[in-house]
């Protein structure tokens, strides 16, 4: 494989990362080829020693996804980290995915319920006093406020649970990736049959 082939495959594998991160990674590997050339090695030798670019891209993407998640705990960062980690193939998709879908579905349902509760609380608080709420306007105001407070509390607890879930998944995947998928491969494997995993 030539330098251009290697970098092109790596770049294709990194699609989806922020452009600055992808450029940074590509710079690293370009410098590696430069250093290899300076040390008197051919492009093919360097590319061979580096390993499979598709696989490296998956690993780099997973690292970047996890890093973003540790910096900003947003839903999109969570989704990015989870999908990047799943992309490693470290997790037994067949077994884990149905469980994961169930958990995610339940969490999503709870979030929708919380939003609905908040909305109805708001409705009672604002509209209640004018709509002849049984017990009077003041009661409607406080019942509505109470419902909204409940919604906020449950929502906060759900967020914590979600964060713990994503962290747990990443921990599990990293652990198993290190254990199951050879981060190190004998060079022979790369030069013969491609990615054995």
């Amino acid at each position, binding site marked *: 494989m030539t330098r251009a082939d290697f970098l092109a495959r790596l770049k294709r594998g990194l699609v989806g990362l922020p452009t600055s991160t992808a450029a940074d*990674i590509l710079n*690293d*590997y370009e*410098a*590696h080829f*430069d*250093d*290899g050339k300076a*040390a008197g090695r051919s492009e093919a030798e*360097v590319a061979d*020693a*580096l*390993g*499979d*670019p598709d696989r*490296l891209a998956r*690993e*780099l993407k997973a*690292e*970047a996804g*996890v*890093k973003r998640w*540790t910096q900003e705990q947003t839903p999109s960062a969570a989704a990015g980290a989870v999908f990047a980690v799943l992309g490693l193939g470290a997790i037994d998709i067949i077994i884990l995915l149905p469980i994961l879908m169930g958990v995610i579905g339940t969490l999503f349902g709870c979030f929708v319920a919380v939003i609905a509760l908040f909305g109805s609380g708001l409705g009672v608080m604002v509209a209640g006093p004018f709509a002849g709420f049984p017990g009077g306007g003041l009661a409607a105001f406080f019942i509505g406020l109470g419902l909204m407070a409940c919604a906020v509390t449950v929502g906060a607890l759900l967020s914590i649970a979600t964060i713990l879930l994503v962290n747990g998944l990443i921990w599990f995947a990293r652990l198993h990736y*290190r*254990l199951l998928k*050879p*981060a*190190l*491969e*004998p*060079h022979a494997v*790369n030069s013969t049959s491609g990615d*054995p*995993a």
Partner: protein
Amino acid sequence: MPETIEIQLKKGVLGLCVLALLKRGDSYAYEIASRLSDAIDMGEGTIYPLMRRMQSDGLVETYLVESSAGPSRKYYRLSEAGREALAVQTADWKTFTDAVDAVLNEAPLTPVPENTTGDVQ
């Protein structure tokens, strides 16, 4: 694909080796990769995901050094957390290898004591 114990062992110590190398002096990725691929037979490309992970875990820091020829080069150095991790992992490694060595080098097991209850067939 079953892994040999050798690959498992190498994989486990790769991070420790990088920390130990950087303790001796700041270095750049090509140098780290070529030294470790000589010492423990590994794919050189592996070093980049590992360095990024160690960087995001706060074990190493990077800085650029201007070079007279060509673009500036990215160097890695140990952070304070990296030094601590090295100390902990080195201690763990010594404990582990000592225990394995002890088992490997152990004298033959002492003969099983005679059965004193006389309950032999």
